[in-house]
């Protein structure tokens, strides 16, 4: 059978890096991040967070093909390094989920005590 193996959608190959970065050759302050074995979950999350950053002029993402498990995120900034802006977005998201985690625990505890 020639069905693609399911784990290829979420497990990195032995020699595969999680991320590759390519500087845009024509546009200044722009670059393309290729995130392997990730999909809309991370792609859309990162794109929306990038757009909140005032240093970002453009941010977009796409999944080029449903059978190729990679996600492309394109960023153009107003002057900052795309890599730094990208890292900033990720750590902002991380702290948001950290906050959500703590708040959810507290809220569940409060709800269980009330009932």
């Amino acid at each position, binding site marked *: 059978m020639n069905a693609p193996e399911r784990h290829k959608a979420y497990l990195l190959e032995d020699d595969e890096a*999680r991320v590759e970065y390519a500087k845009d050759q024509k546009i*200044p302050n722009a670059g393309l991040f290729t995130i392997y074995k990730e*999909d809309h*979950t*991370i792609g*859309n999350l990162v794109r929306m967070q990038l757009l909140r*950053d005032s240093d970002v002029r453009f941010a977009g993402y796409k999944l080029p093909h449903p059978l190729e498990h990679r996600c492309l995120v394109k960023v153009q900034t107003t002057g900052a390094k795309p890599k730094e802006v990208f890292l900033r977005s990720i750590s902002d998201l991380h702290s*948001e989920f950290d906050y*959500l985690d703590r708040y959810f625990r507290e809220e569940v505890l409060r709800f269980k005590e009330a009932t």
Partner: protein
Amino acid sequence: MARNRMPKVKVNEMEEHYAQFEIHDTDCSVANALRRVMIAEVVTMAVDLVTFEENTSVLNDEIIAHRLGLIPLKYQYREGETRLRDDIRTTLSSERDIQRRFRFTRECDCDEYCQWCAVKLTLGVAFDERAKHRPEREKDLPLVVTSNDLISEDNDVRPVHFETDAEADDSVDQGITIVKLAKGQELRFTAIAKLGIGKEHSKWSPVSKCVFRPQPHVHLDDDAISKLPPALRDLIIQACPAGVLGYNDDDAPPENRKLVVKNDAAILDFVDDVKTLTQRLSPTGKSMISAFASDTNFIFDIESVGSIPVDDLVLCAIYELKRKLLDLQLAVNDLKDDDDDD
């Protein structure tokens, strides 16, 4: 530059298998990431490998193996008894997290499977054997083999038979039906349960329902509505399907009753109808309702299949997302700096 948000949570309902909660002050992409991870990337355990010793039932081996895969298996941390993994790198997640107890088989250094990456379940049911213990009038009826006949060799993991005790009381069966046996038939096998995620096969998905919707903001012009005669107010209610709009107090005299939204989830679908209608009814031509979907507040409805209680499920999903983001952060940090001189 306020880039990061401080989301708030409000729990409306929370039981072991069902929850409704709201997340405030966040973005649709965060809500959707959470939903996607809960469906497809939270780690659970399910039967993955079955060795049949005897199967003379009407269903063939593959069908039974498939049915076994779909039986939820619940991991329960037992204080003082459960032996957790000693090779775990982080203690950030709760000890109720199944990954603190089991490894993925692919990451385990055992040959095939071991107590750290798999759970063995056995079943042996023969109609004739069981018939001896059944009451006389039931002796010839088909014998229902259920998840209750599965015997787990690991005390931390057991099949889930029913969602609630009430459901167990209502049911005539002892658990989830696997197959029915007739006279002379027998079923014997060992099943190996392993860790997995919903992306590999949906039998590992811990949820049967996981949806979110934007919170609606509804504003009703109470003054204008109260000036309408009761018959016209009834007309507004009838503009939507039953139960979407209604009165706050059905027993009060008609002139004291206030029009309220009864079903927050559905009102957004019918707000245009109500708008047009109230514009026609109003002497000034002004509509008496406005409703829009929030960009920042979301309502989640989650139903678990039983493998993980919903509160742990949400925490596992958040943890998984944090792991993904950290992984990405480290990978971007490791990128070479050679072509980054602008």
